[in-house]
Structure formats: C-alpha cells, structure tokens
C-alpha cells in the first residue's frame, strides 16, 4: 500500500481534523458550526469550504435549523463518513507497520 491508496478527501490535514473531530462524537450526535470552528481554530470561510467538500462526498451531514429566530447549523458524520474515517485510520496503521518492519 502507498500514500496514493489513501482516501484523498480525508487526506488533507484540515479535513482530516474535521472528520476526526466529528468521529469523536457518538453516532447520532451533532456539533454546532461555531463549536466545531472553535475546536479546529479555523476561520468560518475556510471551515465552510472544507465542509462543502465533505458534504459533496457524502461524508458529512449538514443540518440547518433555527434556535428561536437565530439560524443554526449542525454537523455530523454520515455512516459513510464514519466508515471512510475508520478505513483511513486502518490504512495509516498498515502503512506505519509496513514502514517499521
């Protein structure tokens, strides 16, 4: 296995951090956009760009809602996104073992 076999969507460090953060939540849990942004220290625009890519790939679910009159956005990994993250970490571990042998 080589680097080329790794999931390109998750492989970018910024998106890897997004996916890792959302994967730390339980299944069925969602994180608000401002809290996710704070956890990642990203600008809103930068995070939005990455989230759009992840949403297009079907890895992230974006829920737009209202809290009172304030619009709010919540993010969660889709089952497909969670599976992709697990495959990705498994692939990394394999690569690491291969390099160490």
């Amino acid at each position, binding site marked *: 296995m080589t*680097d080329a076999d790794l999931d390109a969507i998750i*492989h*970018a*460090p*910024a*998106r*890897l*951090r997004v996916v*890792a*953060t959302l*994967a*730390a*939540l*339980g*299944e*069925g*849990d*969602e*994180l*608000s*956009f*401002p*809290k996710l*942004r*704070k*956890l*990642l220290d990203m*600008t*809103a*625009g*930068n*995070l*939005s*760009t*990455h*989230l*759009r*890519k992840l*949403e297009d790939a079907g890895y992230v679910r*974006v829920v737009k809602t209202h809290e009172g009159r304030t*619009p709010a*956005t*919540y993010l*969660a990994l889709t089952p497909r996104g969670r599976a992709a993250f*697990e495959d990705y*970490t*498994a692939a*990394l*571990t394999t*690569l*690491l*073992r291969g*390099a*160490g042998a």
Partner: protein
Amino acid sequence: MANEHDDRDDERAPHPEAEPALDPAESLRLIRDQQERARSATEPDTRLLCLAWGVAWLVGYLVLWTSALRTASDPDAVRFTAGAGWVVGAQPEPWAFWVFSGLIASAVVLTIVHSVSRTAGTRGVSARTGAMYGWAWMLGFVTYGFILGGLARAGASAEVMALASNALACLVVGLLYLGGAAAFGDRGLFLLGLWILLVAAVATYAGLPLTYLVMALLGGGGFLVMAGVEHLLGARRRRHALVDVPGAAGPRAVGSEVTDD
C-alpha cells in the same frame, strides 16, 4: 454554507489544497490529539466533578460531626470506644448545617455550570440522554423535599429527620449513578453508585453523630478515590489507546510523548 454565523473570509482563506500532506505517523498523532480535544470539549470532566463532591462531602460532614460532638452534654463521653459513655443522637448546631448546605450548594452549581458549558453546542442522542439525566436529578430532589416535609408533619423526631434526610439523599444519588452508568455505559459510575448506597446503609445504621463521620470518610473519601482513579485511567488512555482501529498496534509506535495534564 454556514457562514451566516461568522466573519465572511472565504476570499482571504488559504487554498485548502495548499497544505502539505502528512506522513502516517503525523496523521495518526493529529487524529489522536484532535479527538482528545473534541472529547474534552464536549464531555464533562468526571475528575473535576468527583473532586468537587469529595471535598464538599468530606469537609461538610466533618463539620457536622465535630459540631454534633460539641453539643453532646459531656464531650468527653463521646469516644470511638463503644460503651455506656456514648452519646447517642447528638445533633449538629445550626451554623454547621449552614456550612454544610453552602458546600453542597456550591458543588451543585459547579456541576451544573460545568456540564452545561461542556455540552453546549451539541445535539442529538447524547444531548437528549444527558438532558433526561439532568431532569431525573431535579425530580428526585424535588420529591425528596416533599417526602421530608411529610415526615416532619407526621411528627418525626429531630433524630429521625436527620437520619432520613441523609439516607434518602444518598439513595437518590446512588440510584441515579446506577441509572447513569446504565445510560452511558460507564462502569466506574456504576461502582460509585454501588459504593454510595453501601455508605448510606452503613451511615444510617451507625446512628448520630457517627453517621456524619461515616459519610465524611467513606462517602467523601469514595468520591476522592474515584477522582484519582479517573485521573490515572485518563492519563493511561491518552498514552496508549489512541485511534479506534480494531487490532491496531500502530498508535503505540507513533511516539508516546503525550503529556499528562
């Protein structure tokens, strides 16, 4: 998307693909650190809560115990040796109850503020479970208040009231820990609940004023031990278990320079 929340800086943001890719070890370390950060920002810290309650119980009940000893007509008669000199049913002075209540109230406020601020910005299954759990505490203690009121109306003596108020509070706490353990799949919390129930039984049988000493040492001490155990387990988990990869041996090789806090 979603940029109605904050500064609109799409144009100034660096191009996402400009970042260099990481090697596998760096990537795994990044994942581990980020997940640790996400968990500590969304889940209450058991160590902090156990520490707060341990101190509140240890100090609060010790104050009740020492005050009850002072009120015994002959303080010298109260000894650890059982016998004729033992003063049974000695009650603490009002100021001691105020100190005790103040400590318990502080722990309650800290628990609520900490839990609410940690879980803010999350939604879904865990948030709903947590909200129901929080309401269970509230309902338990509102009912507790009414039951004590009813017992007092029925003419329960000061000694019975003192024992019942302590025992019923512990029963609510112990059972809710067991329920929380079941809801969150937390074995440590189950042990803590079991311990609190045992302490409540022993403390009530011990009788006043010994009840308060049992509560301080075994109850407060139990929380402090729990805080210590959680701290050690947390430190070990950060060092070893990293990414949830079935059968992964890799993370340990990734470098174990994780620092304890």
